[in-house]
């Protein structure tokens, strides 16, 4: 019996095949009909269960029950360019997460180096000017499970990311209403979640005042037009478009303006990457580490997985998603000869520079083994490396994805 997923993916696949008489590749197996999934991580330990046991979440890859780490299956990205709220990935640091939130009693504090400290209600925020855009939220450690040599941490495949339409108040408006004092340098954000050990560092992240006031960073109260699912940060979440999700503080309740650099653990000791554009080093090497920041371009194939047998000499549709990072997608290229030659893929509609972009390409393969690659170049001219980066936290991975296919 077909599950709804099965029907949807088959229908979309037919739609994606277009009118060029392309033949169909069997759709990926329906994710909801399966109890388990193998993420195909190098060296194994890639078996995960799929779960619908978490509030507001359906068919998620269970990476950790407590605090929740829930990954979005790749099939979700194949179906819709905007990730449905119930399929958006989940990542928490501390297990003390408030599970009962009174919308009327909630307050967002703005304090520190400001002329007028504020305590805003959700209604206050709804009455303020609003901003609305689509942006990818991607974990710093997305794809960590593919990093070799393997590194500890959440062993994500490629699905600790999601693409949503965010609505909220420009942070600049809130800061200007509070009035920054002269000497304000950084803005620090904290949420309602708490560490279990009283002396452990509460999760806080900071942005420079200029970044915080760029007019794009927002305090979001809606995700795809609805209030945020609790596990994605109800009632408020900081959205820092183009930057990794570690800055997108969930259950945002406290905005503190500092007249000095932020010395807290999560800024100075965690979420650090080697100080070079690829965020790379050799294991054991001593390098300068800096806080992670802007995202880098990536492209993914969403309608095929490796180790599948495909028909030879037959036009096939290869399809997927790309993101530019902190700017738009300029082009997506496909290679069917392990990177020896590249062809431009067709790009789908542009939902804004921080959104995923759909891409599609018709490919025809000779019999044998094929290494199919896809590569995104962003509007700054930055492209994806063929060689994967390495750092001890498995951050900022964006090397070209290769799909190994058998063609007969």
């Amino acid at each position, binding site marked *: 019996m077909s599950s709804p997923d099965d029907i949807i993916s088959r229908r979309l696949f037919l739609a994606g095949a277009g009118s060029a008489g392309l033949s169909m590749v069997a759709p990926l197996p329906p994710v909801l009909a399966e109890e388990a999934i193998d993420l195909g*991580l190098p*060296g194994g*330990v890639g078996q*995960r269960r799929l779960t619908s*046991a*978490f*509030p*507001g979440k359906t068919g998620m890859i269970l*990476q*950790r*029950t*407590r*605090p*929740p*780490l829930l990954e979005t299956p790749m099939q979700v990205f194949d179906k819709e360019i905007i990730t449905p709220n119930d399929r958006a990935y989940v990542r928490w640091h*501390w297990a003390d997460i408030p*599970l*009962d*939130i009174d*919308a*009327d009693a909630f307050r967002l504090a703005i304090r520190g180096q400001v002329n*007028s400290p504020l305590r805003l209600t959700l209604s206050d925020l*709804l*009455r*303020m*000017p*609003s901003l609305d*855009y*689509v*942006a990818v939220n991607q974990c710093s450690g997305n794809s960590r*499970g593919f990093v070799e040599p*393997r590194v*500890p941490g*959440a*062993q994500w495949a490629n699905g600790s990311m999601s693409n949503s*339409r965010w*609505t909220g108040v*420009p942070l600049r408006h809130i800061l200007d*209403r509070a*009035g920054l004092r002269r000497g304000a340098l950084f803005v620090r954000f904290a949420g309602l979640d708490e*560490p279990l*050990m009283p002396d*452990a*560092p509460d999760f806080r992240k900071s942005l420079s005042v200029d970044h915080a006031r760029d*007019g*794009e960073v927002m305090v979001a109260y*809606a995700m*795809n*037009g*609805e*209030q945020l699912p609790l596990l994605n940060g109800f*009632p408020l979440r900081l959205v820092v*478009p183009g930057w990794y999700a570690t800055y997108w503080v969930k259950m945002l309740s406290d905005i503190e303006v500092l007249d000095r650099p932020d010395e807290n653990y999560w800024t100075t000791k*965690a979420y650090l990457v080697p100080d070079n554009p690829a965020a790379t080093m050799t294991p054991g090497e001593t390098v300068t580490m800096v806080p992670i920041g802007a995202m880098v371009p990536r492209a993914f194939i969403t309608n095929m997985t490796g180790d599948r047998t495909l028909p030879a000499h037959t036009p096939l549709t290869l399809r997927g998603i790309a993101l530019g990072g902190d700017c738009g997608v300029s082009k997506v290229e496909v290679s069917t000869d392990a990177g020896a030659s590249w062809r431009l893929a067709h790009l789908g509609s*542009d*939902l*804004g*520079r*921080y*959104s995923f972009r759909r891409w599609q390409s018709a490919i025809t393969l000779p019999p044998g083994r094929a290494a199919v690659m896809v590569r995104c170049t962003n509007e700054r001219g930055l492209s994806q490396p063929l060689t994967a980066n390495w750092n001890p936290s498995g951050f900022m991975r964006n090397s070209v994805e290769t799909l190994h296919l058998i063609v007969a």
Partner: protein
Amino acid sequence: MPPKPAVIWMSVIVALGLAVQSAAAAAPPLSDFTSVSVELPEADRLFPDGPGAEAMNANCLACHSAGMVLSQPPLPQAAWLAIIRKMQSAYKAPVDETDVELILNYLVQLKGSD
């Protein structure tokens, strides 16, 4: 300070070209929030039996479920020791030194790579 009219703010935002709007129609504006009360699934799995399992269960499960450890790849002993030290120093897990050795041996047995 009295709030400025929203229309002025919107014109400022638009004039500076800051909105990252897409061609797709915006969702209808949210007009109200509903209070939320949810439960999360229990994390009741214990570590597999073996020497040190008790120390693992006693020290590790307060802050995270067993799945975090069980989903890790094989790692060298030095890496596991560094993780234990990080749990103690950065995340303030109160692990007795007598337990450190038990935990390290357990992890190497379960998830060692050399």
